[in-house]
């Protein structure tokens, strides 16, 4: 027990210290254990709720099978193009539903309040959820990639497969942030409907289901409003189907969007 006991020097009563130092001083000795346990239990909880896990994992591959492979089987280009956009479509779901619905349920049930009173290491809850969402994103991407390669005849260089995978996994974060924004405001009964209401139209308007070039010009003009559009441009450029726009603005926009959503959600959550 001595190893676990630490001197309880904390920041109270001291004149202003830099925030980082105060933060680190509050970390308990077995802090890493807490983060890992939090992630482990998030994983177990999802595993024990197959009603969430299975549809989230199956839905994107099913969509891709139908629209990318079967419906467009004459066009090799389609399988190619849609693999990139459906990867983005697929990884939106774990973020939006895991956070949007998950957080609102947990908030309503009082679990978040309990964690606020408990000395849970700050951020452990969100980090665990993000790790879970990233894991889902990875699984979805791998399934889509396998389908694209073996059923769609999509041929890519190794670096392209890997880069797309990285875009997919990191791309889950903006939607974790957006999901958190929804989950910290909306009640549990309405959350699934609101998430779908945002998810599906936004995916369509970002050109994830069919190329924007096939739609009236107006849609291409408003596309930059939607975060998935920027993410999909990163993905499409990797496989050579981008619309030629420079990449850096896309990255900056996605990162800024993520940061703003997290910041606002944090303030909303602090008020519950």
């Amino acid at each position: 027990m001595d190893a676990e006991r630490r001197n309880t020097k904390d920041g109270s009563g001291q004149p202003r210290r830099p925030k980082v130092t105060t933060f680190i001083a509050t970390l308990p000795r077995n802090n890493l254990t807490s983060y890992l346990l939090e992630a482990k239990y998030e994983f177990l909880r999802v595993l024990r709720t197959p009603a969430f896990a299975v549809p989230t994992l199956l839905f994107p591959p099913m969509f891709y099978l139908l629209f990318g492979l079967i419906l467009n089987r004459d066009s090799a280009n389609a399988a190619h193009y849609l693999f990139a956009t459906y990867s983005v479509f697929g990884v939106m779901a774990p973020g939006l539903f895991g956070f949007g619905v998950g957080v609102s349920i947990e908030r309503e049930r009082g679990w978040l309040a309990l964690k606020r009173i408990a000395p849970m290491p700050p951020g452990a809850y969100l980090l665990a959820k993000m790790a879970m969402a990233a894991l889902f994103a990875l699984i979805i991407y791998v399934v889509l990639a396998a389908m694209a390669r073996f059923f769609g005849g999509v041929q890519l260089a190794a670096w392209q497969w890997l880069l797309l995978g990285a875009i997919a996994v990191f791309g889950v974060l903006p939607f974790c942030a957006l999901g958190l924004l929804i989950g910290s405001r909306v009640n549990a009964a309405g959350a699934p409907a609101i998430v779908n209401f945002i998810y599906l139209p936004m995916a369509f308007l970002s050109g994830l289901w069919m190329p924007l070039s096939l739609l009236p010009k107006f849609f291409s003009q408003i596309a930059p409003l939607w975060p998935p559009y920027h993410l999909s441009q990163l993905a499409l450029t990797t496989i050579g189907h981008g619309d030629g726009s420079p990449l850096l603005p896309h990255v900056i926009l996605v990162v800024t969007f993520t940061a703003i959503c997290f910041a606002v959600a944090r303030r909303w959550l602090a008020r519950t």
Partner: protein
Amino acid sequence: MAQADVVAMLAAVGKNYGKLVALDAVDVNVHRGEVFALLGPNGAGKTTAISLLLGLLKPDAGVASLFGMPPETFAARRRIGSMLQTAGVPETLTIGELIELFRSYYPAPRTVADIVELAGVADLLNRRYGKLSGGQQRRAQFALALAGKAEILFLDEPTTGLDIEARETMWRTIRSLAREGCAIVLTTHYLEEAEALADRVSVLARGRIVASGSVQQMRARVAQRRIRCLSGLAETTVAAWPEVRSVERDGERIEIVTDAAEAVVRQLLFEDTNLSELEVRRAGLAEAFVEITKVAADAA
């Protein structure tokens, strides 16, 4: 008790929800090692007061503090445990897993064996929280509150839904924790519980503290006594006596509530020479409580 001993405090705290005044100039001082019970009818503001002490809400006026620090401070939260009424615990985790998770939050947690014994959850460790009955869930929540070897325990209606055995176990645990120096802040509707456990009691009515003191002091505020005996006297006769507040007959037994017990007993013995099984009892906390909140309501 020394002022330095105060571990949880509300000082002249006010809290409003829009136009509704939930708390008004409320003072609460909880000392180390004491069991403090917060009583009050529904809507009196007990849950609001606890939420302020825990840092879930911020006061609109006055100060809430734990160990001299703001309640949201990480260092303060590490020294408390709580069991709330609306505790949303993840349904799909087992009790053993939940205990492990909560223990990891504290630098010097209680051992699993101790938690299990104190909370009486040995039979629940492998069961998922969502599959437990209400009473079993309360016991599990109690186990989680104990995980951190807290210096203050906040228990919001802890024995609701528990059977006698579980309630006795929890009472025994609370008493032994208090003996070890842990402060307990308890809210309860169950007045027998406050009588059994509390060192000090405060009564909240309509957002204000209307009475504060030890259980003995509360009881003494109410002069009522209850007289019971076996007697053949008619209730209407007894009810007509000036000092008698109420009379009830239950078969051969009558029960009289009065402020002037001695006068009534004298009269009873005079009027009925066959009277037997005479009992005179002081008011319990229940009567004191009803009286105090009634007075507060009338004064409001």
